[in-house]
């Protein structure tokens, strides 16, 4: 085994990746944990090793649980390569000789690119915030609530001027609660949760309240409602300003209201961060309940691509605790596939993990139903920018549909939406929904962007310096 050859690579050091790497290495495999951040934890446990926020009441006990995942990783002997951006996972060549079939991973570390070969990859790429396309969401001063939480965790930063939070979903309430604990300013919380969602979700409430992890969220929500100004039933939102946010305009019960604001924090749930899985060729499906695309996986997280599995929110939103267990399952299955664990051993070891996973997922249906974003915030009006990189509006996408564009990939060719550096992360879900609504069909029918590596931009210099075989060098010189 050379320094660039491992049995298993785990991509992402959030709960799923940390647990997967530790479990796989404990099972005797050589494991490398590749992560873009400088410190482990992913987004949910971001900066858990080094946050300046030492008052543990501010970030709350669920956050500090993340630290418990680090010891097992250290003890397992897995290599941890922080600061490593994975930009490509190439499946094994069908024609390679049996023993030499390897998956090739392209990564950048300290400004230089390299290719890693492994026998199995566990993608633990986590979640990202669902795009929240409203007029003015590109203005400086408008950030995701998740972004605000990263600022709090990594730097102890909170907004100082007039602050409005808007949207729906657990993370919005958690951030509000953390801000209240920290004494940060919240001028108003504009709740966009559609009224009818409550009716649909209520039958699922008992299951939710029985959940050991999620039930706490309800208490937290009630506390925020008691202490902060919460304005419910908000049906339209826009941000206004002259190069920087000045005013948040919202509609409630049919009338428009204006709030001066320096910071607007938007949130309407999270989605699987599927760019790498998609670019690797993993099949994906439309999840009607969570209203998102998710890679197709089996009980162990195995995808449609041999040697590639998924664990955690990247395979479908289940939350941090579920991600951790899913990471362990993917690791057990990888060990089995590599011949380090027989089937019975894998299944036996998985039993308690599956039980824990079920506990962690209890009550999820309530959250999915309650916080399903309202249509106007998923399928915005014509004047709203949907692709931030190329500044393409929803109206332009609709016009392309009228010209014969039937799905996101054609929209890309027509309009360049999704062709910018974010590679569709901030527009893909919206473009899918806008096209589906315009055509009057399900998002499942219109599909999603076919994403291609590099899934993160890489400099030409890095690419040029990649190691090349003799045959390749030959090609440099031959026509």
């Amino acid at each position, binding site marked *: 085994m050379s320094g660039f050859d491992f049995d298993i690579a785990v991509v992402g050091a959030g709960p799923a990746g940390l647990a997967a790497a530790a479990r796989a290495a404990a099972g005797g495999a050589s494991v490398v944990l590749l992560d873009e951040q400088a410190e482990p934890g992913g987004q949910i446990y971001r900066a858990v090793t080094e946050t300046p926020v030492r008052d543990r009441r501010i970030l709350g006990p669920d956050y500090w649980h993340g630290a418990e995942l680090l010891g097992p990783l250290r003890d397992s002997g897995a290599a941890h390569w922080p600061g490593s951006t994975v930009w490509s996972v190439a499946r094994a060549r069908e024609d390679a000789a049996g023993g030499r079939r390897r998956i090739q991973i392209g990564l950048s570390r300290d400004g230089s690119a390299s290719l890693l070969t492994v026998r199995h990859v566990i993608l633990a790429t986590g979640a990202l915030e669902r795009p929240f396309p409203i007029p003015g969401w*590109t203005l400086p001063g408008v950030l995701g609530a998740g972004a605000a939480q990263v600022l709090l965790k*990594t730097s102890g930063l909170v907004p100082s001027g007039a602050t409005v939070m808007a949207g729906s979903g657990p993370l919005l309430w958690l951030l509000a609660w953390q801000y209240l604990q920290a004494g940060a300013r919240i001028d108003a919380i504009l709740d966009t949760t559609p009224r009818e969602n409550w009716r649909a979700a209520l039958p699922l409430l008992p299951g939710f309240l029985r959940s050991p992890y999620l039930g706490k969220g309800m208490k937290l929500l009630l506390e925020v409602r008691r202490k902060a100004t919460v304005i419910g039933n908000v049906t339209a939102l826009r941000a206004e300003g002259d*190069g920087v946010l000045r005013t948040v305009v919202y509609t409630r019960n049919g009338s428009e209201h204006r709030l001066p604001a320096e910071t607007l924090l938007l949130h309407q749930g999270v989605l699987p961060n599927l760019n790498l899985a998609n670019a690797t060729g993993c099949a994906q499906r439309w999840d009607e309940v969570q209203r998102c695309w998710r890679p197709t996986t089996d009980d162990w997280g195995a995808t449609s691509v041999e040697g590639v599995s998924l664990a955690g929110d990247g395979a479908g939103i289940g939350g941090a605790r579920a991600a951790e267990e899913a990471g362990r399952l993917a690791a057990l299955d990888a060990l089995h596939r590599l011949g380090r664990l027989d089937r019975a051993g894998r299944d036996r070891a998985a039993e308690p993990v599956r039980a824990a996973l079920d506990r962690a997922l209890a009550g999820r249906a309530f959250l999915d139903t309650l916080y399903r974003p309202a249509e106007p915030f998923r399928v915005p009006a014509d004047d709203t920018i949907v692709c931030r990189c190329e500044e393409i509006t929803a109206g332009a996408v609709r016009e392309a549909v009228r010209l014969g564009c039937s799905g996101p990939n054609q929209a890309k060719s027509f309009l360049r939406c999704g062709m910018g550096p974010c590679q569709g992360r*901030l527009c893909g879900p919206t473009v899918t929904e806008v096209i589906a609504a315009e055509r009057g069909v399900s998002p499942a029918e219109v599909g999603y962007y076919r994403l291609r590596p590099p899934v993160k931009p890489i400099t030409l210099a890095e690419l040029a310096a990649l190691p090349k075989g003799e045959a390749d060098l030959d090609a440099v010189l031959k026509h």
Partner: protein
Amino acid sequence: MFRRLPEIAAAGDAIGFTIDGRPASARAGDSVAAALLANGVTACRKTPVSGAARGPYCMMGVCFDCLVTIDGVGNRQGCQVRVADGMAVETQDGKREVEL
């Protein structure tokens, strides 16, 4: 605008860097994007498409709106690079962003 929580502000900033040549300070562990926000810089670039102002949006490396020039290298993701002593951070307008 963003401010530090009091317990952290009291500890002081240890890192000195510049924003468009002006001296600024930050805390070790801050990303460049966080350091910009902590210094009151909300907008860090203008887009090459329309020239519209943009600032950090996702803070986790997916939106590419916090692109800045760091020590002369353009188009770096401010939220993915840690601020360092003596670092020169420049905001990018549409044209400078594309300077090679």
